[in-house]
């Protein structure tokens, strides 16, 4: 089970990003637990400067804007 956190204060793009992650994981058959982190202090703790951010098993892989689905697949498979 991969632990995935989507960092963002609850903007439309952050919600879309969380949905994209879940969909891509389902497609690849990778079990994931997607959690949204909306608290500003918690987001800042990950050291990013733009949202939405994606953290997979504690590692920040993406910050700012919607991810590309081929990138998502690559990150999830890694």
């Amino acid at each position, binding site marked *: 089970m991969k632990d995935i956190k989507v*960092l*963002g*204060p609850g*903007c439309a*793009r952050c919600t879309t990003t969380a949905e994209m992650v879940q969909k891509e994981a389902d497609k690849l058959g990778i079990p994931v637990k997607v959690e949204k982190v909306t608290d*500003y*202090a918690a*987001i*800042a*703790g*990950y*050291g*990013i*400067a*733009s*949202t939405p951010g994606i953290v997979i098993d504690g590692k*920040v*892989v*993406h*910050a*700012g*804007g919607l991810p*590309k689905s*081929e990138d998502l*697949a*690559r990150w999830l*498979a*890694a």
Partner: protein
Amino acid sequence: MSLGSITEHAPGASPSTAKWIGGTIAALILWSLIYSQLVPFAEWVVALTPVDPKSHLGEAISFFAYDTPKVLMLLTLVVFGMGVVRSFFSPEKTRALLAGKHEGVGNVLAASLGIVTPFCSCSAVPLFIGFISAGVPLGVTFSFLISAPMVNEVALGLLFGLVGWKVALTYLGFGLAVAIVSGWVIGRLHLEHWLEEWVRNIRSSAVELPPEELSAVDRIKAGIDAVHEIVGKVWPWVIAGIATGAFIHGYVPSDLLVLIMGRDAWWSVPAAVVIGIPMYSNAAGIIPVVEALITKGAALGTVLAFMMAVIALSLPEMIILRKVLTIRLIAVFVGVVGTGILAVGFLFNALF
């Protein structure tokens, strides 16, 4: 990360890359063909109506029929170009460039990077905290936060297209100056203790993101995405702005505007700033109004000050920033930036 996915992303002249670039060039040619036909198009639209082209209504209709496609087309082109440019930048890269920079140089760099770094007001708070906690000085962070919304591609592109390159360059220069000087002043005031307490307590190190491999096609796609997102969002504002502009063109008498917003009315600059600060519009909505005001004889400095106040300072932005700044710091921010804009208005009216 598998090797296969890297080679897929490697930039190179594959057949699909050629297709994308060819398609982009074809689209640009089509764009200029349509653009060159806008004047006959507007005349044709007015001729369709039973209205006398020289009447108030005729002038308003012709302004609207010409400016709507013109502004939307220019906006699309500029946003596409800027989307491609911005794919080379990110807030994280900008932060790495700014961290540890001294005030002065840092303010200039921050204001300049504010133009090309992708920035959305919804991410202003994470950006602010991300910059401060990684050691970017407060004043330098403010220079970025002032410049990013004010000196943007939408404002510059539309000013260039509607009012001319001189005004666009002036706006660029004065906008950067306001961002640099205001940020520098806020830095000199040493107001770090006026940040909200939880912000001061965050100590995080800037994260190292895995490098992104973007091909030429990815950058073209970034431009198209930007068009979808920005033009898709601001077009109602543009149309509302052009309708207001059309009304001013057709109905507001020049004498009245010269009296209220002409260069002899010294009080019009502070009035424009005070009215503009709480107003919220974006560049796309305000510039058609600006064009109409200028052609009706309003002083350029007054109009520029109004425009900067509307775009750079707004109530929604202050409410967002309230999460990280105390009321006192927001007051200083508005005061310093407002004074800077005021100075621009007076200076410009005096010089030109």
